[in-house]
């Protein structure tokens, strides 16, 4: 990612689409990245396997925030199974960057991982 692209994304970062809570979501999950401190709750409203609404709320860097915002854009209106088809390459395409730096991959995938965990209702191990 070059600096121009970063500044373009950081404009969206100031007010990203789908940054909101959804009341009574079908699924939700609080995703947390322990090394960064990124912390987002994701919400899905699903009706008969169709994603009627998707959103996210919390705090994170440009990469995690824009990835989530673009992801919501992409999945709304689609079948819930679409989540299983989304990988890093897809996120890179959605965000419009060629190749994410290895150190930022976790930022880019925090969103999709959280959506997947929301649906399967997997809890993080706690002690």
């Amino acid at each position, binding site marked *: 990612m070059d*600096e121009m692209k*970063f*500044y373009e994304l*950081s*404009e969206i970062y*100031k007010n990203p689409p789908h940054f909101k809570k959804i009341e009574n979501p079908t699924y939700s999950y609080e995703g947390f990245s*322990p*090394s*960064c*401190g*990124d*912390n987002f709750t994701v919400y899905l409203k699903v009706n008969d396997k169709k994603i009627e609404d998707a959103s996210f709320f919390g*705090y*994170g*860097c*440009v*990469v995690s925030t824009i990835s989530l915002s673009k992801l919501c854009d992409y999945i709304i209106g689609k079948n819930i199974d679409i989540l299983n088809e989304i990988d890093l390459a897809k996120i890179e395409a959605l965000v419009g960057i060629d190749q994410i730096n290895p150190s*930022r991959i976790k*930022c880019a995938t925090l969103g999709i991982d959280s959506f997947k965990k929301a649906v399967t209702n997997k809890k993080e191990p706690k002690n």
Partner: protein
Amino acid sequence: MNGLDVGKLREDFPILKKKINGKELIYFDNAATTQKPTQVIDGIKYFYENLNANPLRSIHTLAEKSTKAYIDAKEKIAKFINADSPDEIIFTKNTTESINLVSFSLRFKPGDRVATTMMEHHSNILPWLRLKPYGINVDLVDTDENLELDYSYYERLPDDIKLVTLTHESNVSGTINDVEKVVKLTHEKGALVLIDGAQSVPHMKVDVKKIDCDFLAFSGHKMLGPMGIGVLYIKGGIAEKMNPFLTGGEMIKSVRLDNVIYADPPALFEAGTQNVEGAYGLGLAVDYLSKIGMDNIEAHEKELTEYALKKMSSLDNVEVYSGKSRNFGAIISFEVKGLHPHDVAYLLDREGIAVRSGFHCAQPFIEQKLKQHGTARASFYLYNTHEEIDRFIEALKTMNKKRS
């Protein structure tokens, strides 16, 4: 000015000549790990070309050379921290392993209490929380608005206190704690003190006799030495009352299946083939630091840090979290308003400037005390310069103001 010829000593660090993203590297991530001088890099090559064998076991000439390299390194390190004897020096992987060694080997009984603090690295919190299921109580000493420890805790230590553990210098705020005072108060209560010296030993004269601590843990890689070698100092007389840590080769006197006799410390804590290359390299790093002089290094870093803090506090888009305590080292945690720390680190990296971002393995301190989701952190060492800070300030000045 101070007694450091920074221009000259920078010549010893080949990596500092590197270009990063087309810009001259400015390495401000020294709290994470430091760069290595040629004296250490070439020394490790020398070790493998001239001294390599399994130490302490075989009796051939090379094994003796390897053993001598290992023992000499212990002597150098003992002298560096003013320990009485090389037998008080245990080699480990790093600070993390050193602290864990104490947590596994000190003989705790249910009802004992350990006091750590809110400003610790995870490696000085988790080894103690781990003991909770065994009936060990764990206190977390609080910090105040200046990010200083609440020393009143140590003035009224609970009767069941067994071990007090604290960092000498915070790796987030740079706060330097009054460890001598804590040791004095703790010893009056008959308990032991462990000092996490990961951020202090590389940057100032640390004298275990003056501090009078029972344990001191630090990492070679944060003081110009190689990765994978760390130190645990155990004051004479204390190791004898501890259990073994890892078990296996070299930590025993005799193994009969019905009767195992363990070795005396320090061998008791050094099971298996040791990292002799690392020990040798750390010895060379200590030589290098001693030659420059820890007082000179400390004075240089102090000057740099004050210079940086003054410049940073004049920037209206930057908030600084360090420098509030009475005594602090060369670590500056900060925020650029409206930007996530990772994005700050990314933008600085585009300018060739390496800083750390995130929780710095101190999530409780950052979340509960700084009330942040992370910070960006610049940390200096002997080879950093005023010019580098000027370039850093220029990069910060325009950040998040460009093209918006």
